[in-house]
């Protein structure tokens, strides 16, 4: 608040109850609380099992995080714009399967491994983008609500992934698997790419006109429209971006498996939405911070992996995730900003 100097009127009121306010402000700073929770979880799992704090395990944690974060980033954009995308999980499956077919074809023509992976990435992103275009058309042209439109593509995408693959993994690419194990320290190469994309999209959301319009549309689409923003075009673009990110996640899973599995990503849209909600993004749109989503995804990943380390059956995973979501939402309702808005 460095440029607050010119308007002293508002200050005294905020200083009147500094202690209580500071406590509330700290609790209200969801980023801080999430960070504390994340550290606490890491310390807890580390104290329970010494193998948790190893380079190998952290490499795995980051890989699992990367399998989720692009979907969560997609969901952050979509939800802040006032929509929702249920189809990202299915899009991972369909793009991975189609991408795998393309890469199999290239491999049978003895194309080099690097070229295969590059083309595969483009195909996966393209299929994801195509699903995104379909969502965009259903929402902005056919005027379906996003929930229904993406429910359509969720179902169709998952079904098509099964039909095309006949229910089995497509292809076998051991070179991809061995490449996926290389990298530097706890970061594999593919993780680094995913993290780079995440950073770029975080900056775009918070510091560019495109990101600003995303918030404005989610906050008040009418105001955005009369301010001269092409709301339809922006909304359409957000779903295409979400589709491309899901497609890239399809490629990410292909590299890990060395094959395109029709089950990859199925149901992951809910984990992505969970990460976003834990991160403090409002489901009605207009509010959210990308660092919240990132912390939310990290917490989910650490919990999912950590439960295995303390010998709790993975079936408990969903219950714990549910509890964390509930906790995060209660925390959000304590925000002083909310109450100030209604006063």
């Amino acid at each position: 608040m460095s440029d607050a100097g010119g308007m002293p009127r508002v200050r005294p009121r905020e200083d009147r109850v500094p202690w209580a306010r500071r406590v509330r402000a700290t609790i209200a700073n969801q980023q801080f609380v999430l960070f504390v929770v994340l550290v606490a979880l890491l310390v807890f799992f580390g104290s329970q099992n010494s193998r948790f704090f190893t380079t190998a395990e952290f490499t795995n944690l980051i890989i699992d995080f990367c399998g989720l974060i692009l979907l969560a980033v997609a969901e952050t954009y979509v939800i802040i714009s006032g929509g929702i995308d249920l189809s990202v999980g299915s899009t991972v499956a369909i793009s991975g399967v189609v991408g795998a077919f393309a890469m199999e074809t290239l491999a049978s023509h003895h194309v080099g491994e690097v070229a295969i992976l590059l083309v595969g990435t483009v195909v996966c992103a393209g299929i994801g983008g195509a699903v995104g275009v379909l969502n965009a058309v259903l929402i902005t042209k056919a005027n379906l609500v996003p929930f229904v439109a993406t429910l359509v593509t969720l179902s169709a995408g998952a079904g098509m992934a099964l039909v095309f693959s006949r229910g089995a993994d497509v292809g076998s690419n051991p070179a991809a698997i061995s490449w996926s194990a290389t990298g530097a320290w706890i970061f594999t190469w593919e993780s680094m790419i995913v993290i780079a994309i995440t950073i770029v999209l975080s900056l775009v959301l918070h510091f560019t006109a495109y990101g600003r319009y995303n918030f404005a549309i989610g906050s008040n689409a009418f105001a955005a429209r009369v301010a001269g923003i092409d709301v339809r075009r922006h909304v359409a673009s957000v779903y295409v971006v979400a589709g491309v990110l899901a497609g890239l996640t399809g490629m990410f899973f292909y590299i890990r498996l060395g094959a395109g599995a029709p089950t990859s990503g199925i149901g992951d849209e809910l984990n992505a939405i969970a990460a976003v909600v834990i991160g403090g993004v409002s489901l009605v749109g207009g509010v959210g911070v990308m660092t919240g989503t990132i912390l939310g995804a990290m917490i989910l990943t650490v919990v999912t992996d950590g439960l295995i380390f303390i010998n709790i059956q993975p079936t408990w995973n969903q219950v714990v995730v549910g509890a964390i979501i509930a906790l995060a939402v209660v925390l959000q309702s304590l925000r002083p900003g909310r109450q100030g808005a209604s006063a």
Partner: protein
Amino acid sequence: MTEQGPVLELDGISASYGSVQALDDVSLVAHAGEVIGLVGDNGAGKSTLIKIISGVQSPDSGRVVVDGEERHWRSPHDAMQAGIETLYQDSSLAPHLSIGSNIFLGREIRRGGLLGRLGFLDQRSMERKALEELENVGVTVPLSRRTVSQLSGGQRQAVAIGRAVLWSQHVIVLDEPTNHLGARQSQEVLHVIRRARERGLCVIFVSHTLPHVIEVTDRIVVLRLGRVVRDAPTSQYTVESLLATITGLVAAPGS
């Protein structure tokens, strides 16, 4: 203001929704530095007329002339670029964005150099300029970093009008700007309208609050069932006569 001609001219505007004739041959001439009251009962066609002026809707027939040039809006953006700003009854602000972000919504200041070309915004300049410019048009607000949802109803309206005054080159259309506001907040809004007139803008003030209309306008146009039934200087109206014209009833003698 070099030109003497009207800044906005509506000529024979008609519009209908299906079988309902919302506007029937409406004409209106507005000059710079003039505050025009636009009044009428519900269904008189005020909203449709506002939509046509602000580019939300196209008329079925008739001409819209701004600053001597005939215009055909395809979107509100076209009207904005021609210098017409509209403040809608349902707020034109995004509640979750800061005051500064709202003032510059759709007209963001970008950073210099490569980052600017990539779409990166100069948030600091926007917040600073927003406060300065709002003060210039007579609106005082707390920190511009606050979100609009943290403001009172009156402050929100003041910011919204300030935004319209700030960006308008010719005409501001205000749809019920004093609705739901207390007496003092309404006075602040009327004050900003007077400031807009001093800046040489034409203000079209749409309201049901007739005392406010009489207090601030130079001329009042009364719509009834899609037609202009009276267009006269404000001095020729009283609240009673205005009400009678709006409803189509003659005021009872001696009342």
